[in-house]
């Protein structure tokens, strides 16, 4: 399976190959990610679903180069991103291609930076623009995320959760990445702010050819946005495939549980609680 692209498909943009992340030592050691083979093609929208603790964030951190896998490899456009084992660091010359938006928009934005400053900082770092030029580009990126110039003057605490998350996306777009990894980007915002963000993400993917790895515990969101999905349970990828197929004909019982848990998909009266005898 991991090598199916070799026979005909284009080369994946980003790929985890037999990646394992082990935390803890000795008897307490466990694999937060276990032998995962996950890839994203250029321009593709791919989902990762699973419950809290299933290893989604750990997988994302590995794919974005924040930490090396204990075993296995991460390949960006076919090349290992961590270099020789001695110097396991994602080279800056490649890092711009993979950007991430984190789960919690409160902790990922500096409270003392105005929205445009947070974006301009990334613009300076990645596009080498300074002063007014950096600000102009920051405002352009923010506007593309539905943030007006007036809102761009605000500090994070004055923005709504949805606005903060859109500022985070604007900042992640500063290096003009090829792939955006979004780790539960809508879990702290309300339903209509969520709709705005999902529209913007799917527009970026369709119109700008940005590949997206969308991580969520909610298969309902993943269904809407992605065309291919991986289902994770306790570090293992237990099911993968075309999103519509996985949604309509799940093969793994755990996938079925996730689907039945989406509000409205099975009645509460028929739900049995796990600890009931």
């Amino acid at each position: 399976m991991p090598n199916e692209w070799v026979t005909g498909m284009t080369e994946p943009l980003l790929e985890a190959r037999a990646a394992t992340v082990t935390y803890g030592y000795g008897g307490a050691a466990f694999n937060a990610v276990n032998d995962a083979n996950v890839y994203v093609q250029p321009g593709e929208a791919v989902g990762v679903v699973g419950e809290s603790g299933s290893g989604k964030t750990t997988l994302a951190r590995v794919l974005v180069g924040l930490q090396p896998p204990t075993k296995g490899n991460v390949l960006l456009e076919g090349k290992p991103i961590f270099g020789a084992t001695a110097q396991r660091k994602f080279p800056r010359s490649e890092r711009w291609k993979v950007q991430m938006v984190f789960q919690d928009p409160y902790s990922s934005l500096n409270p003392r930076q105005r929205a445009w400053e947070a974006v301009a900082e990334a613009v300076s770092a990645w596009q080498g623009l300074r002063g007014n030029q950096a600000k102009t580009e920051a405002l352009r990126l923010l506007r593309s995320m539905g943030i007006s110039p007036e809102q761009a003057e605000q500090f994070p605490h004055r923005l709504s959760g949805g606005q903060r998350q859109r500022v985070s996306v604007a900042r992640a777009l500063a290096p003009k990445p090829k792939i955006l990894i979004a780790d539960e980007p809508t879990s702290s915002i309300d339903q209509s702010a969520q709709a705005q963000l999902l529209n913007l993400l799917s527009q970026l993917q369709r119109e700008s050819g940005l590949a997206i790895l969308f991580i969520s515990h909610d298969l309902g969101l993943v269904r809407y946005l992605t065309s291919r999905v991986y289902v994770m349970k306790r570090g293992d990828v237990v099911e993968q495939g075309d999103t519509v197929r996985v949604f309509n004909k799940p093969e793994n019982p755990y996938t079925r549980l996730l689907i039945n848990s989406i509000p409205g998909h099975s009645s509460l009266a028929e739900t049995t609680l796990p600890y009931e005898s």
Partner: protein
Amino acid sequence: MQSGPLSLENRAGELQDNGQPLLQIRDLKVGFAKSHGILPVINTANLTLGRREAIGVVGESGSGKTMLCRSVLGTLDRHGARVLGGQIMFEAHDLANAPESVWSKVRGKQIGYVPQSSLAGLNPVINVKTQMVEAITAARPMSVQDAEKEAVELLEVVRIPRAKDVLREYSYQLSGGMRQRVMIAAALAQKPKLLVADEPTTALDVTVQKEILTLISRLRRELGMALILVSHDLAVIEEVCDSLMVMYAGASFEAGSVSVTVHAPRHPYTKALHDSRVDTAERGKPLEAIAGEPPTIGSWPSGCRFWPRCPLGDDKCRAGDQPTLRHVAQQLTACIYAERMGDGHD
């Protein structure tokens, strides 16, 4: 589970229906007392809840849902706010301006509360036992041994396995779902007639959310409790509630049965909330997101507070005050053009 502290026998007589609603909030106005004057946060809210009834409250972030819960719990003053007008009729008594001596007989006893952030609700430095015993003895003095026994029973009511062991744990040692169960168990300690749950599952996984919602609906039926469930997720409210109240910028916009309110709303805001849902959206089709953001408090537009975002809004909507609730078909609605909305959109 029919024996324990919450058995129905224990409550015989308490649940007799006298034909009155359990809770009736009428034209409630709430404001923060700031140095420069009063900052209105609710103006005006209306809600009617029968015995054993479950009502959902929806609205975008900042619409005043949590402040409404705090009004019903009598904790506004702890957050620098107070009631400026209207009534909170609970069991035929107006609690709107009741002194703390009255609230302390109601809060945690007749009305239980599961707050929005349950991580904050549980004290991290004392263990589950201390917290449960406190909740139990708050209204009914008893020996620690008896209270402990009751604590175990309560944890079993919320289906916590190994309840005796869990009593010795601290909240940081518990998973999100377990923590939420403990919060619910503590809220049930005094057999409340009403449970107020403010977004009890927002921070949880879908699988755990399903368990908590199942638990809440079952307990409600078994204990004959009424429920106020705050959520921004219409699908969640459809699963659990009988009726629904929609809030926007501090005002009640629409109320009615869940099915009619969701599927044949008489307020453009309710329809817009429904249309923006992703769970019922077609793949690949842009979602019908509501343009812009809800107004922040202190900068509500004049006229109907929704007009800057309303597809039906016109000059008449911008003039005057926020429209008050009125009956249209089976609904209570605060839209002057409610009659123009058809009989359902799907």
